[in-house]
């Protein structure tokens, strides 16, 4: 187990020694839950609102991250569609997995994905996330992302241009307004399967089972 996760005694701000158990105190040990949709009218309104304020997590995993910079700056200006970039997973609703994922990055991506709040959507960018792309036979990059987390939209290409990214966001908007953006629920339903796949690949699993 990692040093950070071990039980230890720390001095509180009041000067008293307190015992902390990070796995219990800092992380939720409850599995993710499936949330049933609310009343159709409310759900429809909520989905409209969600689709028009997509907040993207600023996490670049591979070379595709370079396509997100022109997208957020004036030339392609994704902000006019209600898409904006956020610095922390707690504020984001869309995770753009941009390009190849090494096992080392996958570990961080899983952790980040779990920290995002429901409802959350995943856009997989580039061929690498679909079938491994040009790194399909590499010893250290995963081949298909949908075995580790649910994916809403794939954008094919190596690399896709910012225009295709905008088209992908447009597609995601349609999916959400139609009420099909159920990635977080899928993750909760098939949680054991996703965890087994993640643990098969990430050999030194040293994080809590659910980073919430």
């Amino acid at each position: 187990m990692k040093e950070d996760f071990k039980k230890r005694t720390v001095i509180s701000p009041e000067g008293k020694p307190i015992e902390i158990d990070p796995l219990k105190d800092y992380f939720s040990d409850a599995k993710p839950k499936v949330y049933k949709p609310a009343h159709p009218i409310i759900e429809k309104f909520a989905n409209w609102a969600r689709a028009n304020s997509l907040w993207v997590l600023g996490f670049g995993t591979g070379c595709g991250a370079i396509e997100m910079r022109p997208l957020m700056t004036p030339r392609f200006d994704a902000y006019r569609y209600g898409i904006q970039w956020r610095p922390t997973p707690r504020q984001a609703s869309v995770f753009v997995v941009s390009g190849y994922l090494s096992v080392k990055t996958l570990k961080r991506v899983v952790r980040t994905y779990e920290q995002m709040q429901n409802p959350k959507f995943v856009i997989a960018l580039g061929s690498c996330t679909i079938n491994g792309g040009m790194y399909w036979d590499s010893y250290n990059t995963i081949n298909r992302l949908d075995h580790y987390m649910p994916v809403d939209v794939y954008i094919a290409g190596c690399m896709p241009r910012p225009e295709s990214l905008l088209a992908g966001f447009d597609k995601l908007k349609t999916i959400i307004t139609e009420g099909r953006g159920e990635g977080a629920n899928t993750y909760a339903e098939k949680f054991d399967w996703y965890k087994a796949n993640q643990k098969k690949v990430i050999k030194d699993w040293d994080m809590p089972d659910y980073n919430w």
Partner: protein
Amino acid sequence: MNDIKTKFDITDIIEQRENLSFITIPKEHAISLVTYLRDVKGFKHLVLLTAADWLEDEEFQLTYLLNNPDEKSDLGVRVFISREDATMETAHHLWEQVATYQRELKEMFGIDFPGSPDVDKPFILEGWDDKPPYRRDFDTKQYSEDTYFPRPGRESNDPAEYMKKKLYPDEK
């Protein structure tokens, strides 16, 4: 160069250019030669330390590429070590950054450098439990197929064959 030849047991010299040559030396004299080159001959700068896997000869080849900034010349010191017992003396006391190269070589090729700081810590791969991936007998395609859930339906064509079929379909 003659000076080094008389002092050390050098087995091979390749002069590639006026300012670039490679010398081969047995494993046990390598570090003393590198030390000599650094302190006496002015090869103060280590450009890189790298390895090559000669699977057929059952050898690893280590190359210490040194640079002499005053004479603007480079010199590669080549050492052959056996694949079976892949250990080499550490050189981190000469240049601090060698420790990082050695850590990488340990992880990717499985060449051990006893005494080098943090040499056993994972460098890029976390929790790797297979054969070191840069060894040529490690089958990366097989490993990827076994581990990373390949998506079925992937086809690859040999470009020459493909174009031949497309342009000259009648030819056999």
